[in-house]
């Protein structure tokens, strides 16, 4: 092997100073965004502290009720689009007005990335109705990662495991994509299709500007007009069991549809407790 020649080829792969500075800047920005979120959480602690008395009182009441076992709390955070911000979905009881928080974003290859954070989780089980999920394990020195699209994913955690947030779960609309990709991607906008619901006059000025700039184009997005309606939705049923054996069930609803300029949009929201999921 001509090592010198090969080494010279790899040597050329070294980033230049401008690249290094740009990447470093981007990394620091991403870390800063995370820190800002953490600071927000700290501020919320102030509110929490003022409620301590109320919570203590409530706890005292609960532990004296015959079936009043405390329910573990878990944060389910959804990433809005590839590399986008994390939104923590609130369940119906956690929101001040009782409404479920949702996220909505444009994604030409519909995917939902989320993570589950909490304490003393022994196992997490995900089940989908229509599409698929897989997990990406970012913990410790990464081992062999074999993401497989499955409709049921069960993870068990060792006793000393704490980095639940380092496991990212991804829901992918694989069947939808397969359907759209049939006949040489015939169901993608740009292949003889035009967004049928396109109504230029009804757009806002911002949307018109985005269209003019090419940012709002639906080219390359899936045209879901003929896709069965019930398959545009999916439910990710989440079962979390803690080390004391307590089970918490929640569900993320996902819907994929076209917006009025034909882009593929993902909407996700957390089910109101486990009302819908309980029946499964």
């Amino acid at each position, binding site marked *: *092997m001509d090592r010198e020649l090969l080494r*010279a*080829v790899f040597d*050329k792969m070294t980033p230049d100073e401008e690249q290094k500075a740009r990447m470093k800047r981007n990394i620091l920005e991403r*870390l800063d965004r*995370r820190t800002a979120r953490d600071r927000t959480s700290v501020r919320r602690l102030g509110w929490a502290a003022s409620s301590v008395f109320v919570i203590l009182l409530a706890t005292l009441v609960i532990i004296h009720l015959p079936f009043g076992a405390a329910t573990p709390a878990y944060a389910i955070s959804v990433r809005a689009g590839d590399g986008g911000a994390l939104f923590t979905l609130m369940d119906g009881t956690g929101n001040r007005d009782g409404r479920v928080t949702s996220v909505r974003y444009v994604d030409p290859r519909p995917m939902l990335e989320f993570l589950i954070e909490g304490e003393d989780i022994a196992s997490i089980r995900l089940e989908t109705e229509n599409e698929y999920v897989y997990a990406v394990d970012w*913990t410790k*020195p990464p081992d*062999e990662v074999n993401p497989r699209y499955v409709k049921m994913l069960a993870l068990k955690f060792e006793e000393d495991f704490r980095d639940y947030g380092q496991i990212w779960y991804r829901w992918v609309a694989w069947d939808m994509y397969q359907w759209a990709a049939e006949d040489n991607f015939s169901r993608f906008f740009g292949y003889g299709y035009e967004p049928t619901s396109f109504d230029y006059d009804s757009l806002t000025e911002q949307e018109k500007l985005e269209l003019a700039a090419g940012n709002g184009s639906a080219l390359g997005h899936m045209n879901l007009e003929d896709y069965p309606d019930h398959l545009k939705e999916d439910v990710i049923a989440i079962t979390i069991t803690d080390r004391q054996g307590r089970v918490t069930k929640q569900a993320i609803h996902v819907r994929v549809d076209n917006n009025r300029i034909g882009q593929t949009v993902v909407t996700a929201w957390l089910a109101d407790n486990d009302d819908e999921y309980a029946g499964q």
Partner: protein
Amino acid sequence: MSEEIGQPMKPVDSLETAFSELYERHIDTVYRVCYAMMGNRPDAEDAVQSVFVKLMRSRPSFRSVEHEKAWLITAARNHCRDEHRRWWRKKVVKLDAGMPDGRQGVHAPREDMTDCLLRLPPRHRLLLYLHYYEGYKLHEIADMLGMNLNTVKTRLRDARRRLKLELEEDEDGQGAVARRI
């Protein structure tokens, strides 16, 4: 290249200082791993950023600088492999036909050699990089990537053979290069 005999870690003052030092120590290696795996600049840059962000968020403890480097190489490999498996990859970027000029010295490689290398599967490019550029021994690569030693040997042999074939098939008079492999 053993983790135990690597340069020991030194304490750092702040998160930003820690990051800057770590970044300067390993950016070249991590980028080259990502480039070797992804085959183009934009995807390599994205991958590098994700790997360092992941490191700073998970903050694993390392025994030495070599351990730290091995972790980053493995994380970069896994991230890039994950990216390759994503069917929804949004960026369809052609593999760089030639890399930017400016670092070509006495041993300036012929562009054909670069093209041939980029035509190999990413896992082959990674092994060639780790062995011939970074100087890792085969058992060290096996340990680092969690692979069987025989698998590493086989894959590296395949990588060499495929590179040789690519060079031989190249029509631009690559005979001289191919004969040296």
